């Protein structure tokens, strides 16, 4: 008697765990499908090629930003300064294109991004900070960089000099292609290189990684440097598309990027996730934003909805983590 009861019980548990598994791993995809179905019932202009094209272009900039952020978050960190790097890199690139030509300007801009990222990484590595310290330090960096941008630009809108070669970067499908290339590179880096392996280990257990004879400081600086570079790359695409740079262009971008990464299922506590998660997250957040626009929902309620989604995503992540302890 007792036996059969138990077996029935374990069957139940089996199905529950299966459903949970699907829910955990594909929750975001399910949300995406739900949004698409609901909104396409509501509006005919939603499920059109033109709108699809639109969404892709809209998500490229945040998407590129999210690639670097994925590395940082998997390594157990966070970077709030990327939005301000986008602003600074934007005004730098537009000015330098005007004075020194396209390629040198791009190199200088990417270099600036790398340097700023490296500084955050270096401070964090030196003080052996964890996630909490990363929040505070990069928050400080955000303020410093935003002020630098204001000083450098004089606080005014920077106009580009017509279209030219630089304008092509943000034109048509180019941003989407750049986004895809960066996705592929990042994913390859994560799964197929020693650097990627160490990034996971940093997020998994930094102490054990250090005790494995690995120079954790070096790798932490590397991660933040790469993140700075992708932030600068995002700025270049954005600036090229707009044809001008506002010294506040990237304000709030860091939250959009972090949201996309976390909603996609990359764990904020580090060590877990991949570019597949991030791409899913970027697409979901992009489609959601677009859908809300189509439904004429203004930006304040939009932000409330986005905020709730982020909190839910973090909640699910913590719930998953706690569940691991119980079998």
């Amino acid at each position, binding site marked *: 008697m*007792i*036996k059969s009861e*138990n*077996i029935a*019980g*374990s069957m139940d*548990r089996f199905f529950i765990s299966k459903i949970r598994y699907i829910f955990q791993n594909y929750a975001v995809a399910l949300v995406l499908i739900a949004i698409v179905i609901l909104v396409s019932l509501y509006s005919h202009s939603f499920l059109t090629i033109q709108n699809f094209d639109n969404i892709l272009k809209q998500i490229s900039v945040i998407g590129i930003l999210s690639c670097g952020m994925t590395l940082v978050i998997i390594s157990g960190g966070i970077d709030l300064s990327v939005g301000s790097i986008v602003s600074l890199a934007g005004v730098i690139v537009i000015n330098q294109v005007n004075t020194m030509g396209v390629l040198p300007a791009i190199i200088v801009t990417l270099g600036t991004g790398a340097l700023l990222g490296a500084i955050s990484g270096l401070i964090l590595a030196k003080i052996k900070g964890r996630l909490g310290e990363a929040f505070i330090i990069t928050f400080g960096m955000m303020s410093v960089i935003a002020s630098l941008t204001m000083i450098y630009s004089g606080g005014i809108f920077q106009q580009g000099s017509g279209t030219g070669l630089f304008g092509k970067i943000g034109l048509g499908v180019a941003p989407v292609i750049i986004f895809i290339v960066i996705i592929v590179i990042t994913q390859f880096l994560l*799964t*197929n*290189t*020693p650097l990627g*392996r*160490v990034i*996971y*280990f940093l997020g*998994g*257990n930094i*102490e*054990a*990684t*250090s*005790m*494995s*004879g*690995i*120079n954790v400081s070096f790798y932490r600086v590397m991660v933040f440097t790469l993140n700075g570079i992708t932030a600068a790359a995002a700025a270049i695409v954005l600036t090229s598309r707009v044809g001008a740079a506002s010294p506040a262009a990237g304000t709030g971008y860091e939250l959009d990027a972090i949201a996309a990464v976390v909603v996609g299922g990359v764990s904020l506590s580090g*060590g877990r996730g991949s570019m597949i998660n991030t791409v899913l997250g970027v697409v979901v957040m992009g489609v959601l934003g677009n859908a809300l626009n189509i439904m004429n929902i203004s930006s304040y309620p939009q932000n409330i909805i986005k905020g709730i989604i982020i909190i839910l995503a973090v909640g699910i992540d913590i719930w998953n983590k706690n569940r*691991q302890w*119980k*079998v």
Partner: protein
Amino acid sequence: MHEFALEMMDITKVFPGVKALDKVNFNVKKGEVHALVGENGAGKSTLMKILDGVYSSYDGEIRINGEKVLLRDTNDAKKNGISLIFQEFNLIPSLSVAENIYLGRLESNKLGVLNWKRIKESAADLFQALGFNISADAIVENLSIAEKQMVEIAKALSINARIIIMDEPTAALTQSEILKLFKIIRELKCKGVTIIYISHRLEEIFEITDTTTVLRDGQIIDTVKTCNTSKAEIIEKMVGRSIDREFPVCQKEIGETILEVKDLIRKDVLKEINFNLRAGEILGISGLVGSGRTELARTIFGADAVDSGELKIKNKVVRIYSTLQGKKNSVALVPEDRKDQGLVVNFSVLLNMTICNLKKVTFKNLILNKRKEKLVCGEYIKKLGVKTPSMQQKCINLSGGNQQKIVLAKWLFADADILILDEPTRGIDVGAKFEIYLLMHEMVKTGKSIIMISSELPEVIGMSDRILVMSEGKVKGCFEKKDINPELIMKAAIG
């Protein structure tokens, strides 16, 4: 009155890919100390975790004092008077010792304000009664592994349990603390408390237990009165064959000095350490908990900074200021704390195996060669006899002893000339211990050197060519193989 304090009937527990327990019948009489022994991965911890409500899904029935009980979570277990000392510690690193001990049952007054003074006092009283020298205010993450173990013991004893389960409580302790623990066990037994005692150190079984149950591959092999059996008999039941010698003999040559440590100082922990290590030598380091053995190992490896002193490796003065430097100078350290320092427990066996020597599994240092990684991992799993359903299994799901084997394996793969082992056989069963000793001999035969820190005196004596005894951060004596005897070492260790 019912004869048995505990009856576990037809317990079966299946994990994905592993049948950890197969129709286990385990009965424990009231007021006895009952030993549970078996190889790594036999299912001992799993059986005990079921009893503590950690695993709520299993088949079978549990009775306490003859009454059927349901143990769905740790609270159920507590209510039934069961308390478990975890093999893999279950403490919260960022909290103080007192908080950890009374977590989940912190007393507060009517306003919900905690009486910190009372909590601290009762923790301090507890340590006093146990004879453990730990401050109730200390933060757990700053404690050594032995101290963490003592906190675990105190925590389990602070609940007035009727059945106390001790899962390898002595694996991280030295002789003097073990004696204190045994005293406590005897006192508890006088009070009628039932104790289940798991250990891989068979001498302890004979010293402290009344009955012994042997578990092998998830099945009960036998339950006997401890006084009616022998060590050899138990080993044979455990591993299915007899082991006639505890330590293998080794023919080898000891060569030139490979490592020289001169006047090494680290403020407050290491005081003018001098010694050398020769090629092909096994140098044992003995001493009490807190004598500076682990700190010395960490300093040589580069995990901690030196304040002054000189290190010479292969006749060259080296500065080792990071673990990477240590690795580059061919020094490896297998740390004592496998859960926090040895492994990323949430990652797979495969990932943990190659992390110390990623270079060796790449194409031109740039791209990971995943096929080679798997080959390497498979090779070391076989070499050390790691019990795991697959390479993809997360380390946290392996038994304690098997986790320890992975820590050893990952550093063996790093292929260093100077291997420092900090309690290498902690939690490893007799059969596997012998295999590890053979591996150590294989290494020194090829001219490599080993520094072995161990709290198990027989092990240090059985394996070392020379023994360094440390006390209070100083080297208190150095004994050649021919002069080694236990009394001398104990005397030097006490200082």
